[in-house]
């Protein structure tokens, strides 16, 4: 096993407090406003999450950060440099995992990394060495000569991750890195990312997996319709918006409903299901199970998913 420091190398480019500074970032497509003048800052060495339902503007936002999409307004600095002017210099120090699989099917596993290294001006010998280190890091060394078309979904994702690390980036941008993966593959990606975090890499992550965000992000924003709904760290947001616990009641009775309403408890009524947010240590839950429902009533810890659904609503995004 290669030492992670060798994979990451040493970070030298930037030592400021914020690696990304977006101010009034705007992106429009004709009349449609995809990103509506949002401002955020990604602290150096931290993991920053952008959460939101499909079509919220997550990908559009990160695409502007890595210089893929020109912005329609506002200002955006990466490593303290202006993305509009110094895009090339910035891109030399960013690693990107795009959402869609963009591995080169015409090339083998190793060639995918080597060819990519050339785009960053790495000499061939160095590229080979770095590629081998990264294949070790993602446990794909045994498949180095395989065509990428023969890899499983999880292996492809790991290879995309390795490819995004080929230039020893100071900022790693992950656009839904685990979407569509099985739990094993997902956990393997999280492990690798955790290891990278331990080495101080800065990550900008988009996801709609709340578990992923809770696990990786030091700070996050939830966006919808191109606007920021909240910003904070995952635990704070849960405390602030949902409280400590959640009680879910299946097929609530009318008495139960009037009880909840009379006491003005924070809740959501989904018809066949009632969700009650509570701060106490279980007194309410005991009361409810004793007086109203013998079964179909569950108490659990509040999660980021509760915050997310509360803020972005439950209707489908299609």
């Amino acid at each position, binding site marked *: 096993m290669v030492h992670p420091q060798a994979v990451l190398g040493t970070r030298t480019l930037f030592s400021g407090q914020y690696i990304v500074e977006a101010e009034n970032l705007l992106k429009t497509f004709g009349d449609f406003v995809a990103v509506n003048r949002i401002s955020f800052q990604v602290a150096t060495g931290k993991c920053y999450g952008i959460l939101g339902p499909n079509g919220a503007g997550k990908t559009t936002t990160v695409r502007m950060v*890595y210089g*893929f999409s*020109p912005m*329609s307004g506002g200002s955006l600095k990466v490593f303290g440099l202006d993305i509009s002017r110094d895009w090339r210099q910035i891109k030399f120090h960013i690693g990107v995992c*795009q959402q869609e699989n*963009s591995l*080169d099917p*015409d*090339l083998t596993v190793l060639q995918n990394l080597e060819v990519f290294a050339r*785009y960053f001006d790495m000499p061939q010998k160095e590229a080979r060495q770095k590629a081998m280190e990264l294949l070790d890091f993602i446990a794909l060394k045994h498949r180095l000569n395989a065509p990428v078309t023969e890899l499983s979904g999880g292996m492809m994702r790991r290879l995309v991750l390795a490819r995004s690390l080929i230039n020893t980036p100071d900022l790693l941008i992950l656009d839904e890195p685990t979407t569509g993966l099985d739990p094993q593959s997902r956990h393997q990606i999280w492990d690798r990312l955790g290891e990278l975090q331990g080495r101080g890499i800065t990550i900008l992550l988009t996801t709609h997996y709340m578990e992923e965000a809770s696990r990786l992000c030091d700070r996050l924003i939830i966006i919808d319709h191109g606007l920021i709904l909240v910003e904070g760290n995952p635990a704070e947001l849960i405390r602030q918006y949902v409280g400590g616990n959640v009680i879910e009641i299946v097929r609530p009775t009318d008495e139960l409903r009037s009880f909840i309403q009379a006491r003005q408890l924070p809740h959501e009524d989904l018809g066949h299901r009632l969700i009650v947010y509570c701060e106490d240590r279980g007194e309410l839950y005991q009361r409810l199970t004793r007086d109203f429902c013998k079964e179909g009533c569950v108490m659990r810890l509040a999660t980021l998913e509760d915050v997310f659904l509360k803020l972005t609503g439950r209707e489908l995004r299609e």
Partner: protein
Amino acid sequence: MTQGFPIKISRRFLRVWGRNLKVYRKSWKISFIPPFLEPLFYLIAFGVGLSGLVGNIRYQGSDISYMSYIAPALIGVSIMYNSFFETTYASFVRMYYQKTFDAMLATPLSLEEVITGEIVWGATKSFIAAAIMMGVISFFGFIRFPEGLLILPLAVLGGIAFGSIGMFFTGIVANIEMFNLPVFLFITPMFLFSGTFFPLENLPQWAQNAAFLFPLTHLAHLSRAFSFGQIHISLLWEIGYLLLFSLIFFPLALFKMHQRLIK
């Protein structure tokens, strides 16, 4: 990076070119076969099969065999095909299905460099094809040396011209099937009516005039002139036309691809 169209081209396009070369080298043994066999097939079919009917033909005041008439034009056709099909179907697959350009755009490469690399790669394929075909055709004694070597730089120029217009179509087609249109309306008529298989003088005047707009007319004529060793100052006009064609469609291709991909 405003909504305008900044030109961002450096030598880095060679990295994109290098990627394509690497893929090509993986299957070069197969890639070599078409340009090697194609002239043989044509020479047998048209040359051997037809020349019995056609006999010699009169070209610029002298009688020449039908096979020696069409052989250099076949090189011109191959130059056209190789770059045009590379920057249409092949580039479209890389752009649309393989997301190769998307991946490249997350690196220090600019879109202009990606597209330039693709067009120059198309010209490289024209060059390779022309070189192989020259080898085959010289075996029959249809190419005079050293003048015939001028076909090699001509292949690069023709490759850029047809690669650029191919990439322009890639910038505007809605899907890969739509390439049938430019192939049917542009490439095929050129293949047939550019002085390739019979002298333009056999056509009515209006058709001759139209044929002078075809880049292949000039490419085929230049190839023939170089093959016969008939170097003349007037050829500069035809080289100039291919240059002009490239100078129009190369920036146009960049512009359309920019419109298509940068959102």
